[in-house]
């Protein structure tokens, strides 16, 4: 591990502006030419409680949060509870320091607000500082902020001190503050920033080596989260209707859409519950709009029945599912990948849907666009599943990435001219659900089109949509709907797979993962290969229809593969094994479900344990399943 990168952790209390401060600092790093990656950790609480954002910045692409971090800015927690002795939650006031020390690398830097944090309260602080060669710079950030502005501006003082210790130019930080603020607030913040910078520069002797890395981008970059990727992908596919109910972490996509849609002729609806949300998206889609909805685990559970309705009525629909740690309310603000089975199979009857799992913010955009195309071309619900980590993970992406054509096409929907020539029954009812199709798709009409009326029904129905329990009709309609999945599989294979591969083709050890763990796995693969192993990773984006051929080919090339996923029961491994039969015995799981995503070293250790045939478990927080010898 080298320190040619900065991993800055800003820690404080929820509601103290840690998020916005980190956002601006990330942009400053990006504008200075560095590649950036953010990770946020926060409690399910409005005010107070341990929260941090980590920003990793380097002169080369960064794909994960990295292992540990090397620079801590510990702010106070304005809303810390004052617990009684032996409270479950411990002394909250010192958590910005005490909760963050375990992950700080050897030789790391600490700035803490001595105006708010008392190191006497932090157990063995001095001993730990000495043992790990940490460089500690106490500073009265609160005092500085109060002197030149208001107490809440202590975050700015912290950023000034950070810049000083990293010998980083203030220009870009000032530029961003000028974009975001004005008037007295701006003046005060600028003064605090500069005062803090100068105080640190003049009064402290720097004992640490870490300095800001230098980098340069070939073209202009923008800072995008996974949630932005999804929302922007939807907008560029002509989605102009969203219905939802707030739930962490899905709320991010819902918010971005709700803020943008009124400006571009769209409609957003916050409704009474998620059953309504999904039903509204179906109603809007049925009437001719490109519509979406979404939720997180519990809310998505309420969408089960509407989801089945979209399947049988063949109403185009895109749903997004932002997974968080379950079951039930679980850990609302913590990431997990435990909803694969939920998303694949929820709702009664044989499921008939497409499920994609993007791996980073740019993929969120690409995959969402693809999801809309498939949903409207094939009249099938398409679900984008991601998680709390990816939802709030920001990375830099070239601005030119978004410079492409919109696609408002309604896919297999007829115009009135086409409808006039389309088959109708002898009484003039449009044959919406015809048996004979090439790919399983029977084109639809929308209400208001002349001679297009038909019945969309959640009951099994005949070619005109009328309820029918005729056995022959049932088989024909069921087979046609299921045929769409085979057609989609063929399309995906022909148009280029959405899967991501990483590592040498001739590797003899494999890692399979999906979604938000993709970047972390890739970083682990790099390290394993640098360490002399031959390891290759496959990140599966298409969860349904599963790319069986690709997975089989991948497994044919390796002796064994470790399936890396954030859940307790190995849902991706189970899903693959269910499809593969033979070949599935090459799979072992590496699982983590403690509320934090994998760090690259945990995956490296997991692979090394497998390669040495050890029966040990990697760490207390991750698990190999089945364990060697089982």
């Amino acid at each position: 591990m080298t320190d040619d990168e900065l991993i800055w952790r800003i820690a404080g209390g929820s509601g103290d502006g840690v998020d916005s401060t980190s956002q601006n600092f990330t942009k400053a790093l990006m504008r200075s030419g560095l590649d950036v990656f953010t990770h946020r950790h926060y409690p399910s609480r409005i005010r107070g409680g341990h929260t941090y954002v980590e920003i990793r910045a380097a002169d080369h692409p960064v794909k994960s949060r990295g292992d540990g971090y090397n620079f801590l800015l510990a702010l106070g927690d304005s809303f810390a509870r004052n617990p009684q002795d032996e409270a479950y939650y411990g002394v909250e006031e010192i958590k910005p320091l005490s909760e963050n020390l375990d992950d700080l690398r050897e030789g790391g830097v600490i700035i803490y607000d001595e105006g708010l944090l008392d190191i006497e309260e932090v157990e063995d602080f001095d001993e730990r500082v000495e043992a790990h060669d940490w460089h500690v710079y106490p500073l009265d950030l609160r005092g500085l902020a109060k002197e030149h502005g208001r107490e809440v501006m202590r975050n700015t003082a912290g950023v000034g001190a950070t810049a000083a210790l990293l010998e980083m130019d203030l220009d870009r930080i000032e530029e961003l503050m000028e974009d975001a603020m004005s008037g007295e607030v701006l003046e005060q913040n600028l003064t605090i920033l500069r005062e803090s910078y100068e105080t640190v520069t003049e009064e402290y002797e720097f004992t640490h080596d870490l300095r800001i890395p230098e980098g340069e981008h070939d073209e202009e970059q923008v800072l995008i989260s996974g949630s932005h990727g999804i929302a922007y992908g939807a907008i560029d596919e002509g989605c102009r209707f969203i219905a939802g109910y707030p739930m962490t972490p899905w709320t991010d996509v819902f918010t971005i859409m709700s803020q943008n849609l009124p400006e571009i002729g769209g409609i957003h609806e916050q409704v009474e519950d998620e059953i309504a949300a999904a039903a509204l998206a179906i109603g809007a889609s049925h009437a001719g709009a490109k519509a979406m909805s979404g939720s997180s685990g519990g809310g998505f559970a309420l969408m089960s029945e509407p989801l089945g309705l979209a399947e049988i009525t063949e109403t185009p629909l895109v749903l997004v599912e932002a997974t968080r740690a379950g079951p039930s309310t679980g850990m609302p603000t913590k990431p997990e990948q435990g909803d694969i089975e939920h998303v694949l199979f929820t709702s009664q009857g044989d499921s008939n849907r497409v499920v994609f799992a993007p791996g980073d913010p740019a993929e969120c955009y690409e995959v969402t666009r693809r999801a809309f195309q498939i949903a409207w071309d094939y009249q099938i619900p398409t679900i984008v599943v991601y998680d709390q980590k990816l939802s709030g993970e920001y990375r830099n992406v070239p601005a030119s990435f978004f410079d492409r054509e919109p696609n408002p096409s309604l896919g297999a929907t007829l115009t009135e001219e086409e409808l006039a020539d389309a088959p109708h029954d002898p009484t003039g009812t449009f044959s919406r659900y015809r048996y004979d199709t090439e790919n399983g798709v029977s084109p639809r009409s929308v209400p208001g089109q002349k001679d297009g009326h038909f019945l969309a029904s959640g009951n099994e129905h005949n070619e005109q949509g009328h309820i029918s329990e005729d056995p022959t009709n049932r088989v024909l309609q069921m087979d046609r709907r299921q045929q769409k999945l085979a057609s989609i599989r063929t399309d995906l294979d022909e148009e280029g797979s959405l899967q991501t591969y990483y590592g040498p083709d001739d590797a003899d050890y494999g890692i399979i993962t999906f979604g938000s763990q993709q970047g972390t796995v890739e970083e682990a693969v790099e390290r394993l290969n640098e360490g002399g192993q031959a390891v290759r990773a496959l990140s599966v984006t298409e969860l349904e229809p599963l790319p069986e051929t690709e997975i089989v080919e991948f497994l044919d090339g390796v002796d064994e593969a470790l399936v890396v996923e954030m859940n307790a029961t190995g849902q991706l491994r189970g899903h693959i094994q269910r499809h593969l039969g033979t070949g599935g015995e090459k799979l072992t799981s590496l699982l983590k479900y403690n509320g934090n995503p994998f760090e690259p070293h945990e995956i490296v250790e997991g692979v090394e344990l497998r390669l040495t045939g050890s029966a040990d478990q990697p760490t207390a927080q991750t698990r190999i399943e089945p364990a060697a010898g089982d």
Partner: protein
Amino acid sequence: MSTFSAIGEQREVDRNEFTPGIEPQPTWCPGCGDFGVLKALKGAMADVDRNPDEVLLVTGIGCSGKLSSYFNSYGFHSIHGRSLPVARAAKLANPELEVVAAGGDGDGYGIGGNHFMHSARENHDIVYIVFNNEVFGLTKGQASPTSPKGHKSKTQPKGNAKDPVRPLSMALAAGASYVARTAAVNPNQAQEILVEAIEHDGFAHIDFLTQCPTWNKDARQYVPYVDVQDSEDYDFDVTDRREAAEMMHETEEALYEGTVLTGRYYRDENRKSYQQEKRAIGELPETPLAGRYFDEGAEWERSYDFLDRHR
């Protein structure tokens, strides 16, 4: 001019256009009140000259849900209790459509009660017909939200311990701007009320008494019925919320005491519909969203134009 040529055709429409050419015969039991709703709806749509291709009828589940099977128009036979959210969104996506939602009393006041409350509160410009037969018919006679206290069935062997819901009062309290009760046995009144409901700009709730001759034999066939507007025994102002509330309360009580009161109960012409409210604050496009997808000359914004905030 609408993008969709069936909308605003301005021709005379015959009620028989709403009768399906194939299998026009509903499967409801002989004597079922649901026939009355079907007949009144066909008549009302013809009265206002809406044609089958500009009407979207969204139904729930149960005997009442089959209304969309026997009414020849664009139809959406959705899931239990969810006709309202499907209908609301279709109206938002294309406000030029005539959108009617319909379902039973279990569908609307029970499993879909949350949607009933919020659709009324938001005052969506749609008609909502609730077939109220005071029982779960298709599942064989269990107590529904409007069943009288004491109703016995296989799932209420000792009789229903619950008081029935008050559908009219609920609609008023939630915010519906048109509330009426009619009965299948009074087809003329039903058709007139449906015409008013269709022409009303806002959420029009009709509690439609539909006798169930099979599972609610104890109940009267809702005869004799009294039209509160025609009767000299009742005098109240349908635009006065307090008077309407009192009359609704009395009507709800009376039903379980053997007196069937029907008529118009509340009308607020001043309250803006949800569509109007949203348009006023710039949350609903001036022209129907659905039409934009069929307009080849439409310009589509792209995310590339919002990137400034990410630089």
